[in-house]
């Protein structure tokens, strides 16, 4: 039992907590808890009305049980009852329970809001504060709706107590963060800004958090806060350590408020008013001066508080980036901290210096600390500090120190923590490329990188070295020699084999003169690695081999022998098998000239932003990449994923989903490529030109990214869209490809193909952000009895992780069992920055997709038309034209529908008639269509006849929206 039991000891509660603590095992604890839960439940259900104290005690016990990690599914009502108690502690426990265990039960929210409303109106400051706390704790939209109008009034009212003002300010902030649209400051703006002048420091401290947040969103409306903030800061900075009484913390006057004032100023550019600016610069100088004064106390709290202000002041100086004198002083101060005995200060100094390194005024000053930083990278015992040191080295790197820094980073990589290796690899690769004076150094560096940390070398890194080697003929011979040597190692990383295979395939001839690296030696060396490699690498090696046949005719027989053996030509992997077969055939039938043309050396890659840089930006967010890097990235808009764009008509990479898989043009043998389109087309990027997917009936696949087709941008909102998004069914009736959905986070592209009653739909999920989506799932469901009509099954579940900027593909196999009207639902869930996104869309799957066109003559048509003359077999609509009535446009749409468009059948040449058969597993449904436009009236009459009433009706509904 505790020695202290302040206020009211709830004895029962203390006994219960003791019991739990005395439990010897988890089982015993659960048993004790279940007993208690049963007890509480019976008390709550019992006939005897409980008094307030008992209710409070039991609610408190429930809270305790919840905090132990158990689920609580009752007691909410009793807690709500406590809210309206006039005993403070009962009310307080009620509010605590509600705050911790919010339940979105709408009935309860209404009751809670009622209780809050009463307390806010009570004029009792203690009750008002409790109510405000509850709103801030729950912060739900319902509460924002109920109170967002009231709270600003409380905040600025003249007769509101200070403590209530403080609570109101922060409560409003919370509501603004969750529902900014509901918090309208308008008329209150200037009175809120003037809270910065309030006499009560507590009010200023609370209000400034609100003002900072509002200023970030509406800088113009709040800009008067700048001069007020400067004068407040100036008063604090110049005050003696005892002036502010209780707001002095370990001899530092108002550290929290000072930091917040400095942070608020970072929402704005330097003050334009000379006097204000002078006063601010004075403050900043005073803060820097104080850092040099001897400490007033030995306590760590004193130095922390003092340095917190200092770091915030340095952030402001860096933000302004206009006062060279202050920037250099800041840098020197941080330099001192780099060797401070406090780990925390070393960490922060490294972090803060990173941003200083990107300012032209202080870049040189930062560079003088290079030895200290390298030392930190080697000797710091804490990985987070080493990480900061690596970041700083990266930020301070330029041409003058690149070799030293890259060498240090490489040697650090040998022992680096696994958690930071990938990022280190990217950084080394970027620096090596950016500051390479001679490219042999660059090639050495990257090969070293693969040797030391091969597992962490991503595709972008080895793609890039190849791009650079291809683009610079001065380094090709050296590269060939170096990879050849590197491949001699008995165990070399697969990435090394990839680079080696590619480079020798292109430039092996440059070292073939040396008998030690004769063509056959080169080939044997590569082939000795073949069997240890994964499928994509083997595929790459096969391409290298065919290139060898062109480069060195003398290796032809040996290589053909290899290609011909069963393990290649009958390989169970289709990609490998296909390559072996095609390359073998190509090498046997093509003349030397053809071979030389097909297998010509790769042309240079167009220069674009380094793909590695893009990757690092994605990984760390743009802030982590220094300013100069960003400028270089801007040249081409920065968004490009790969350094060289897709090239070559080939696109049949199976196991590398990254769009940059194509960039090497490795598989660039055009005749082979086009022969392989069947497989290749599966991977045509959704955003490329319409691929070879169009079914024979001629689906409208002209530029689905053209403006009229692209999905309308959704209203700006960070909230996840809820409920099924109406899929604008009409958009995909006459076409199979396009953008199904798009918001700020996600784009869903779609391609589909149908044959008879079967279909296949390719969904492409593109992550538009730079942050990865986690727990990504997509499920297809057929509501109601739809699944007895249509089967729609994903071939496999999607990968749960979608990296920033990456695209994920999912394939759905579709089978139409019988005719249907509704469409299957696609549900997508993922987490983006912690928030769950949930999205339901209707798949654009309509009955007309299973049309088989039927050609017939005029006589046939009208004979069948007459046969289908039962009233239920016909569906007809007369409607106003919504789109262009141009003949060609109408033709294209009707063709897209999938029926045969019959010419010279209708006696009126303005009319259109079509025929087709809907293929379902159960039956075939013949359909005839007649569309009669009336240009003068801008009207249509659409008539559908089919052997099945539901089909006629559904088609008529679908089509009526198309014209």
């Amino acid at each position, binding site marked *: 039992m*505790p020695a202290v039991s302040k206020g009211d000891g709830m004895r029962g509660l203390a006994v219960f907590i003791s019991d739990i603590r005395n439990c010897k095992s988890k089982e015993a604890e659960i048993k004790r808890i279940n007993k208690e839960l049963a007890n509480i439940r019976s008390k709550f259900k019992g006939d005897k009305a409980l008094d307030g104290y008992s209710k409070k005690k039991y609610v408190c016990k429930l809270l305790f049980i919840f905090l132990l990690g158990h689920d609580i599914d009752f007691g909410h009502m009793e807690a709500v009852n406590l809210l309206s108690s006039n005993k403070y502690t009962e009310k307080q426990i009620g509010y605590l329970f509600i705050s911790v265990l919010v339940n979105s039960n709408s009935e309860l929210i209404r009751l809670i809001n009622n209780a809050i409303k009463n307390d806010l109106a009570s004029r009792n400051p203690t009750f008002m504060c409790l109510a*405000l706390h509850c709103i801030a704790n729950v912060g739900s939209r319902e509460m924002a709706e109920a109170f967002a109008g009231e709270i600003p009034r409380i905040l600025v009212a003249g007769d509101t107590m200070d403590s209530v003002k403080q609570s109101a300010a922060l409560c409003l902030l919370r509501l603004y963060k969750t529902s900014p649209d509901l918090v309208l400051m308008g008329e209150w703006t200037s009175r809120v800004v003037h809270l910065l002048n309030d006499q009560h420091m507590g009010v200023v401290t609370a209000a400034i958090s609100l003002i900072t947040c509002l200023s970030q969103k509406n800088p113009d409306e709040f800009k008067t806060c700048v001069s007020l903030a400067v004068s407040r800061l100036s008063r604090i900075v110049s005050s003696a350590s005892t002036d502010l009484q209780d*707001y002095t913390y370990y001899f530092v006057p108002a550290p929290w408020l000072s930091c917040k004032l400095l942070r608020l100023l970072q929402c704005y550019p330097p003050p334009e008013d000379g006097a204000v600016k002078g006063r601010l610069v004075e403050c900043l100088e005073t803060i820097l001066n104080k850092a040099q004064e001897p400490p007033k106390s030995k306590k760590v709290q004193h130095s*922390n508080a003092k*340095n917190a202000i200092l770091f915030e002041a340095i952030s402001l100086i860096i933000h302004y980036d206009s006062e060279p004198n202050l920037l250099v002083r800041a840098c020197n101060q941080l330099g001192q901290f780099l060797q401070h005995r406090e780990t925390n200060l070393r960490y922060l100094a490294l972090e803060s210096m990173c941003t200083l390194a990107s300012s032209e005024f202080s870049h040189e000053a930062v560079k003088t600390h290079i030895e200290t930083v390298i030392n930190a990278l080697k000797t710091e015992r804490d990985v987070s500090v080493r990480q900061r040191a690596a970041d700083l080295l990266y930020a301070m790197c330029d041409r003058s120190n690149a070799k030293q820094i890259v060498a240090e980073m490489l040697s650090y990589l040998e022992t680096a923590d696994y958690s930071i290796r990938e990022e280190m690899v990217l950084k080394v690769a970027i620096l090596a490329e950016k500051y390479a004076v001679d490219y042999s150094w660059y090639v050495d560096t990257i090969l070293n990188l693969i040797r030391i940390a091969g597992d962490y070398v991503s595709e972008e890194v080895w793609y890039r070295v190849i791009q650079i080697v291809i683009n610079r003929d001065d380094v090709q011979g050296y590269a060939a020699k170096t990879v050849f040597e590197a491949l001699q190692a008995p165990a070399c990383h697969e990435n090394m084999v990839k680079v080696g295979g590619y480079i020798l395939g292109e430039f092996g001839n440059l070292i073939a003169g040396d008998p030690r690296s004769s063509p056959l030696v080169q080939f044997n060396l590569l082939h000795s690695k073949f069997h240890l490699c994964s499928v994509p690498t083997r595929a790459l090696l096969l391409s290298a081999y065919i290139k060898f046949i062109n480069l060195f005719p003398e290796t032809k027989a040996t290589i053909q022998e290899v290609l011909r053996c069963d393990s290649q030509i009958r390989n169970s992997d289709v990609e490998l098998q296909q390559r072996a077969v095609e390359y073998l055939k190509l090498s046997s039938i093509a003349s030397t000239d053809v071979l030389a043309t097909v297998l010509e050396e790769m042309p240079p890659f167009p220069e674009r932003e380094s793909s590695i840089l893009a990757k690092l930006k994605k990984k760390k967010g743009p802030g982590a990449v220094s300013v100069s890097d960003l400028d270089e990235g801007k040249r081409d808009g920065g968004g490009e994923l790969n350094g060289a764009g897709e090239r070559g008509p080939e696109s049949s990479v199976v196991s590398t989903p990254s769009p940059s898989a194509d960039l090497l043009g490795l598989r660039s043998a055009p005749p082979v490529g086009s022969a392989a389109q069947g497989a290749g087309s599966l991977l045509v990027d959704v955003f490329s030109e319409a691929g070879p997917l169009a079914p024979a009936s001629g689906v409208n696949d002209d530029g689905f990214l053209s403006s009229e087709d692209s999905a309308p941008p959704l209203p700006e909102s960070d909230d996840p869209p809820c409920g099924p998004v109406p899929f604008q069914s009409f958009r995909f009736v006459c076409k199979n490809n396009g953008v199904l959905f798009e918001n700020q986070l996600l784009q869903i592209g779609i391609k589909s193909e149908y044959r008879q009653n079967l279909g296949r739909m390719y969904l492409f999920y593109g992550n538009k952000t730079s942050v990865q989506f986690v727990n990504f799932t997509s499920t297809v469901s057929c509501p109601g009895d739809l699944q007895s009509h249509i089967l729609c099954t994903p071939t496999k579940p999607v990968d749960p992780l979608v990296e920033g900027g990456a695209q994920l593909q999912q394939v759905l196999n579709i089978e139409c069992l019988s005719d249907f009207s509704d469409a299957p639902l696609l549900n997508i869930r993922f987490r983006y920055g912690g928030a*769950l996104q949930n999205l339901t869309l209707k798949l654009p799957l309509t009955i007309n997709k299973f049309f088989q066109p039927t050609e017939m003559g005029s006589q046939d048509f009208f004979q069948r038309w007459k046969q289908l003359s039962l009233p239920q077999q016909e569906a007809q609509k007369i409607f106003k034209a919504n789109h262009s009535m141009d003949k060609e446009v109408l033709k294209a749409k009707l063709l897209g529908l999938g029926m045969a468009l019959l010419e010279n059948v209708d006696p009126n040449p303005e009319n259109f008639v079509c025929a087709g058969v809907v293929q379902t597993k159960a039956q075939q449904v013949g359909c005839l269509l007649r569309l009669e436009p009336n240009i003068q009236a801008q009207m249509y009459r659409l008539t559908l006849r089919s052997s099945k009433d539901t089909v006629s009706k559904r088609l008529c509904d679908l089509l009526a929206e198309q014209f």
Partner: protein
Amino acid sequence: MRFMLLFSRQGKLRLQKWYTAAAERDRKKMVRELMQVVLARKPKMCSFLEWRDLKIVYKRYASLYFCCAVEEQDNELVTLEVIHRFVELLDKYFGSVCELDIIFNFEKAYFILDEFLMGGEIQDTSKKSVLKAIEQADLLQEVAMIQSVVLSLGQ
């Protein structure tokens, strides 16, 4: 601030305060993960670390870890002192606070935290103001108790 956690050396959660909405399941997962990360760190290591997209600031007092998750742009040192001020407040209220006080009077610990921080921002940094608010509450409750005693005597 996104959340504050108090947990023991043995990995028992003693207090949790969340300032942004999240599903209970995710919270539990985050707590588990974060406790693992922090408990694995050695005494001399720095008090800050990057975790997911957040900055973690933590400090150990006796057997208890106080751990705050703050945003990218928040000031680490000042957060460290937020923790310290909270410890001071607990100490002043309970009189040389220990882990047991927080276990047995968890509701008081919540009240004190609520008086100090609201929605993840500092409401008041003055020790006096915060404690005054808490003591006032205790006083209200004693008055209520006396009243009920008087009433029962009167019957």
